[in-house]
């Protein structure tokens, strides 16, 4: 178990090094693993997108419907990036699943940043900080308006049409 914990810590450390790298010059160069986040860091990441519509998606490699809807998020970001939509992914994978996570992101090639939830603390506090009505089910998506206010929450697997509907309403 200690070995596993060490492996996880090493993976997180490797991620931290990547975080220290310069910011990407374009969305196409965006890091596929953008770092680890706690509730405070997540709020800051969303706030940094102020002025844009934000689609915040919580997922995990072990979650089949998450993997199924992920290509639609990649497509959505490509289609709506220029119109003011940012997509942010937050993986709930554990550090031991880092190889699977990296492999999935490499194959999916999202042009948007994906973070991993920081291990530690009570997951309930993290869940509550995102939305009091969220029970912790995955996938889960929160859509924020240009003003940074939460506009909609989407529980469970979505279609491209439902993602598009959610953002289109906020771009008017």
């Amino acid at each position: 178990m200690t070995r596993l914990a060490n492996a996880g810590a090493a993976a997180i450390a490797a991620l931290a090094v990547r975080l220290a790298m310069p910011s990407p010059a374009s969305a196409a160069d965006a890091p596929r693993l953008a770092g680890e986040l706690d509730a405070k860091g997540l709020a800051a990441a969303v706030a940094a997108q102020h002025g844009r519509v934000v689609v915040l998606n919580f997922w995990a490699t072990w979650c089949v419907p998450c993997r199924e809807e992920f290509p639609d998020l990649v497509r959505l970001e490509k289609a709506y990036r220029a119109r003011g939509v940012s997509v942010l992914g937050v993986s709930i994978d554990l550090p031991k699943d880092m190889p699977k996570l990296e492999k999935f992101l490499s194959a999916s090639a999202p042009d948007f940043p994906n973070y991993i939830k920081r291990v530690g603390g009570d997951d309930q506090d993290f869940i509550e900080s995102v939305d009091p009505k969220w029970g912790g089910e995955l996938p889960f998506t929160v859509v924020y308006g240009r003003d940074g206010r939460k506009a909609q929450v989407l529980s469970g697997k979505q279609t491209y049409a439902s993602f598009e509907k959610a953002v289109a309403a906020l771009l008017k």
Partner: protein
Amino acid sequence: MKTLRFAVALLGIAALAAPTFADAPAIGSTAPAFDLKSVDGKPFSLADAEKSNAYVVLMFIATQCPYSNGYNDRMRDMAAAYAKKGVLFVGINSNSTESVEETAAHAKQHGFGFPVLKDPGNKIADLYDARRTPEVYVIGKDGKLLYHGRIDDNSNDASKVTSPDLKNALDALLAGQTVSKTETKAFGCTIKRA
């Protein structure tokens, strides 16, 4: 008439596209009654179970969800330990993607000594507004909902649990005390609704 049919069709499409959830029963309210069949074909009535046990623990579970599977041993062991104290644990599989046969084989494989029910059309999950697996509900003899949420705070490693919430709730109730934390949350797999 055509307009009415069109409107009904649209409503149908909307219902398919966006599953709606009932309001979750509040703590202290009456837990919705239901009758289902277990995966081995036996009838199960929540009303009867409430009458013949001090408490009933409903657990929405899955066969393929790693978060739910992380609790297989804990569910089996808690069910056995608390059965001696008059608590009946009951598993409910509401996933449209997991068959009766698969659910039965999974229960057998993991040595579940408690009844496991299949919830066709996720009607009971809808009644309870259950969203994920695992998600548990504790119901008293009077049918009142007393606890809703997670089993504990660590699905990955039972040895690292710091908040055994279901155990705490049951121990408090069995000791005639008030449950200090009646609602808890955890990550889990979405229930795959039909």
